[in-house]
């Protein structure tokens, strides 16, 4: 009986270890790739777009619920073509984390789109969209916020008026994708 107890304890420890696999988190990935010039890593604040005072309360709720949009992009050029697949696989592996709940995924002709979220359907903390094209590169956009409601997001999109094209963030993104 003592043997049994010992073995079951050992098994439990083993199980715990296996389920808490050490998967690279996004934060870790960002830290590791900070100096990699192939990547654009940028936080886009909500202030880059403006909302008129006449916007609906739902649109305002959505606007306020978003902290920022974090963008990670890898653009393929002559020199980094070989790294594309490796880097893409790294990011895809991060997205496999079970805390990212899948919404949909599409694969076609070397192009891929994956949409996931963190939190619950009524209170989203993070919405992620990954897009990839075998010829152009890939990008991961993460909308980070608190209590984001999808139905309000649509209303927000309809209300957005100006994008601040003078902002530094906008020019950075523009330059990278040119």
């Amino acid at each position, binding site marked *: 009986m003592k043997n*049994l107890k010992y073995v079951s304890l050992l098994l439990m420890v083993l199980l715990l270890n296996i389920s808490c696999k050490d998967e690279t988190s996004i934060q870790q990935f960002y830290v590791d790739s900070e100096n990699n010039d192939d990547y654009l890593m940028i936080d886009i604040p909500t202030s880059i777009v403006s909302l008129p005072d006449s916007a609906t309360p739902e649109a305002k709720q959505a606007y306020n619920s978003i902290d920022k949009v974090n963008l990670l992009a890898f653009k393929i050029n002559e020199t980094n073509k070989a790294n594309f697949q490796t880097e893409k696989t790294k990011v895809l592996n991060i997205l496999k984390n079970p805390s990212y709940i*899948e919404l*949909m995924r599409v*694969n*076609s002709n070397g192009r891929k789109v994956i949409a996931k979220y963190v939190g619950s359907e009524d209170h989203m903390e993070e919405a992620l969209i990954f897009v990839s094209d075998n010829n152009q590169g890939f990008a991961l956009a993460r909308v980070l916020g608190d209590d984001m409601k999808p*139905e309000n997001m649509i209303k927000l999109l309809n209300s957005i008026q100006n994008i601040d094209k003078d902002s530094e963030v906008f020019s950075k993104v523009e330059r990278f994708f040119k």
Partner: protein
Amino acid sequence: MKTINNKYKMNTKSIIMLLLMAITPLISFSQSLFEKYEDLDEVSTVVVTKSAFRLMGKIGSDSEEAKQYINDVQSLDNLAVYSTSDARVAANMKADVKKYLKSEKLSELFRVKDKNGNVKIYVREGKDDEHVKELFMFIENIDKVKIDGETMKAVIVTLTGDIDLNRVGKIIDKMNIPGGNHIKEATHK
């Protein structure tokens, strides 16, 4: 001496059983026989999950139709569409479909052969005559169905959930699924 030996034997048996019990949940049962097609370049894949259906419902407008749609999609689980324009992959798909139908014991609901190809629709029994747990469609030898400009040779569509046969035609109609019109045909009452 004998009693001690007996105790040891029992322990080993229990250990093996415990091990089996512990390992079983870790073995990821191959979700779907068809998921492997996702990684192939020759295959186009679309997967929409239960979460997405529920969200789509929330975003809908306030029309009566939208409210009905919201209701309908609550009971859907996953939708998966796999299509290929490659003849060899299409042949593999056909063989896998045969395997799948056999192992999952799906029964044929509808079959039609039109100028576009052979369409076969199968279902997995649900809680009653009006409901099915899975709606499975296989289309082959298609000439006119084009996805992304390429002519498809085989298309697999699988929809799981607590599907109301009376309503599924309307739901599918809203999604742009190849052969979707046949599902409406097959289930139209």
